[in-house]
């Protein structure tokens, strides 16, 4: 999973921080979303999906990334 946040869209409601505090935080000066972990471990995926679902400003998106074997 790769997480993206759009700080322009974010309205600072903070619901993502409540859902997945390991992945999302808020900027001290204006409460806008900060991404702490762009590729969170599987154990946090449900919480991230919840954060996406409840984000009022549609500022969070995720993409599934294929694990590519390094050669």
């Amino acid at each position: 999973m790769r997480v993206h946040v759009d700080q322009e869209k974010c309205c600072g409601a903070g619901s993502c921080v409540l859902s997945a505090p390991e992945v999302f935080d808020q900027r001290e000066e204006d409460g806008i979303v900060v991404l702490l972990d762009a590729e969170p471990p599987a154990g946090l995926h449900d919480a991230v999906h919840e954060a996406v679902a409840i984000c009022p400003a549609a500022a969070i998106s995720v993409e599934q990334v294929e694990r590519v074997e390094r050669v």
Partner: protein
Amino acid sequence: MTTAERTEAERGTGPADDLTPLAVPAARAAGCPFDPAPGVERARREEPVTRATLWDGSTCWLVTRHEDVRAVLGDPRFSAEAARPGFPFLTAGGRVLATSKPTFIRQDDPEHARLRRMLTADFMVKKVEAMRPEVQRLADDLLDRMTAGRDAADLVAEFALPLPSLVICLLLGVPYDDHAFFQERSRLLLSLRSTPEEVRTAQDDLHHYLCGLAEAKRREPDDGIVSRLVARGELDDEEVSSMGRLLLIAGHETTANMTALSTLALLRNPAQLERLRAEPSLIKGAVEELLRYLTIVHNGLPRVATEDVTLGGRTIRAGEGVLCTLNSANRDEDVFPGGDALDVGRDARRHVAFGFGVHQCLGQPLARVELQIAVETLLRRLPGLRLDIPFEDVPFRHDMGIYGVHALPVAW
């Protein structure tokens, strides 16, 4: 009983497909004061985007399903600007207020975002979480006073209303000694029965009060929000006053009513109350469920379409008003199975009690902390808490834009 088995009388105004408009604000059914108005519930099942008639005879669209409510509130083609023709007003007073300079909740981006972002840092999760000890101390002090030498009191007057009022006064830098003044004006602004004159006077009173406060903070700054807004130098006193008024009203009326109504809902659902007492760790989820179940913004959030938009099989034309009924969305069976029941163990986080879209409640982290502390402290400290009047006599706020109870006599 299935829908098809309902009698015409129970169905209300007639067959679902005849577009007979619902009246809004609508009365809640006698005996079911926690449930959305029956007509709204029926609309969600049978015709989720339907016509409604407002108090002044004008019509708008009523959006009742969870998915559609989120779609409208998250779509910039639906404007929050009350000055636009077609904007649906819920009261005569609301129309009066739209003639003055709007606060950011009645503005669209980018101006809305510019103003809102001046406040987002004050309500961010970490900052509000750091206030827990102070909110807990205030809650304990209020309960100490309420219970000293007595075994009965009005929970609204002595706990549910003063707690968030004290907190928002602290945050804003408003003297709590003035609470009777601003609570009375807030009540007039939120009452569906206020005359336009009463609304205008209450608005002017609060405006002058907050302009005076802004002036005082310019002379003697503190670390409250009003003082910092003044110090930014980007806003004139009228803008500081409008923002201060919005925060002051939103900061105490909503949480006060959620606290009192939550207490009543738990007292009416003793199994849920006992479960929460037995498992205090459920409190965060229980507060989300209470927000969902009670949804105190009970007449819906108004918007006006700026373009033609198709929604739920209907075409909403540019210039037509829309009301998003949050309480109906929060009972939508597609998202909350068995949604008419209070279940403190439910995962209710997808509720829209705080609205949705970029206008979603700015103070929600604070509301959550206050509600978690208020409900947990009440249940823990008053194990014998009970309603002190017949349930039928509880004065529900059918006449207010924010639902709740005017008073809640309890004993313990």
